[in-house]
């Protein structure tokens, strides 16, 4: 038993060490910096909450954080709606080629952020493929300018980027959904909609939440897509942090914005978890129903 424990320590310690030293510690340092301020070109290390007051008072930063949350929620919702039938199909209709379907879904992810965004720019641009195709076929007579560099374009590409994560979360939930429950519902005379609403939806809600959480967090953290696809609408709270660490050189304020964003995200996730655990569905899942 002792050697078991030693082996476990040997396995766990390096991983915990790496994450602690290279992720948690830098985030803690970032937190410390958020209380400093800039004097001329030096960073003055007298702690104050001035930066947080600035963030709270600034309409721009408040709006940017709200916008990030809004975009995260929207894309999570869109991906949920699009991905739900796909996850159902892979889990319940595909028998032999299941892993092929899943891998095929993930392969676009492995092409890298840049190539994906580049491809979408080619598709969406004013002189791009979609416009020239529509012009060529005579569907439109003027190129649609709004396709690229708009909020819509950003939403499309963000959904494209993170849909696989939503499908993965949902797929796991569908896999653990017992087929006999569906048969029982049918035997008891439930119609298709009643089965979906009363059996399938409640049983897959945890997957929907898990997938939604992943999409939400990843969308908020996405820097490149709004920058390269959104045009002038591409200013995000993340790009503001980036600017403050680059050209604007106000590391303390950037740190404070970064931590405000992290805190907002964590608070929202905890609030959502608490709300869910208070619903009847949440209680039944927690108590192992």
């Amino acid at each position: 038993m002792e050697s078991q424990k030693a082996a476990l320590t040997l396995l766990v310690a390096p991983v915990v060490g790496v994450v602690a030293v290279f992720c948690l510690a830098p985030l803690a340092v970032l937190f410390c910096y958020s209380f400093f301020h800039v004097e001329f070109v030096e960073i003055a290390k007298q702690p104050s909450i001035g930066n947080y007051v600035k963030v709270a008072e600034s309409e721009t930063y408040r709006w940017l954080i709200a916008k990030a949350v809004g975009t995260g929620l929207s894309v999570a919702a869109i991906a949920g709606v699009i991905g739900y039938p796909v996850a159902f199909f892979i889990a319940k209709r595909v028998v032999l080629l299941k892993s092929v379907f899943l891998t095929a879904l993930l392969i676009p992810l492995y092409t890298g952020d840049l190539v994906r965004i580049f491809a979408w720019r080619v598709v969406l641009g004013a002189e791009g493929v979609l416009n020239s195709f529509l012009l060529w076929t005579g569907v439109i007579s003027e190129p649609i300018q709004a396709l690229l560099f708009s909020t819509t374009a950003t939403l499309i590409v963000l959904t494209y980027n993170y849909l696989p994560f939503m499908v993965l979360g949902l797929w796991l939930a569908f896999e653990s959904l017992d087929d006999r429950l569906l048969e029982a519902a049918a035997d008891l005379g439930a119609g298709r909609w009643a089965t979906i609403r009363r059996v399938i939806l409640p049983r897959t809600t945890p997957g929907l939440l898990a997938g939604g959480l992943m999409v939400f967090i990843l969308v908020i953290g996405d820097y490149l897509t709004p920058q390269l696809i959104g045009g002038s609408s591409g200013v995000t709270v993340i790009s503001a942090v980036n600017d403050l660490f680059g050209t604007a050189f106000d590391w303390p304020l950037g740190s404070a914005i970064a931590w405000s964003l992290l805190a907002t995200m964590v608070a929202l996730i905890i609030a959502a978890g608490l709300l869910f655990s208070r619903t009847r569905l949440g209680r039944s899942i927690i108590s192992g129903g």
Partner: protein
Amino acid sequence: MERLLKGYVGLVYAFMYLPILVVAVFSFNASDMIAFPLSGFTLDWYAKALSDTRLLTGFGTSLLVAVPTAIAATALGAAAALALTRYRFKRKYLFLALLVVPFFIPRIILAVSHLIVMSEVGLERNLVTVIIAQTLIILPFTVMVIASVLIRLDSRVEEAAADLGATGWQIFRRVQLPLMRNGLIAASFIAFVLSSSEYVLTNFVSGRSQPLSILVASDFRFNLSPALDALAMLIVLFNVAIVVVSEAVRMRSK
């Protein structure tokens, strides 16, 4: 209803592959313009992309980052996957949460906090810092791949080895390591691909030596040309080939 579902799923997969397909088509199109109508077949863009020495140097730099990252992420991932699948311990969920935290921290925020620490310690930005940062965010993927192989393996083999008097190290060296070999190969391939295509962290913490992804980024901000289509296609084919091989290796471990 069933046919409707099938058609819908087909549409979603088409959506996932549409941009890549478009890039593929225009990488063979004999025109400077990336627009319809198509004007003929050419391989010139590939020749152009492949003869660009700047890009080749960038590719070399990418390898300098991706190989060590793949090794580090696979080694740590194997340790974490073994701990998660072969041991019972309190706070397993905490350990799991710790593993995925770096992946979910916005990349820019992780990058700027590394920047602060480096300036505090007085370190120059260099490729080592890129390797460390990338290893952190790729770790969840390698853990997932290796754990998926370990879960399918019968842990009674290890129990039998222990009953026959093998020490912990012997079990690891003679039983677990050979059994999870395919998982390790698959994980390192996936890590390699994720590392070579990562941009944000790389851009922030890499100093003067610029990997391929950075060069591609600056190119397509300023000049969208079909040569870039060809380059993107080469990257996609390279990555997809590696992923497909690694998936095949992972599936075979039964």
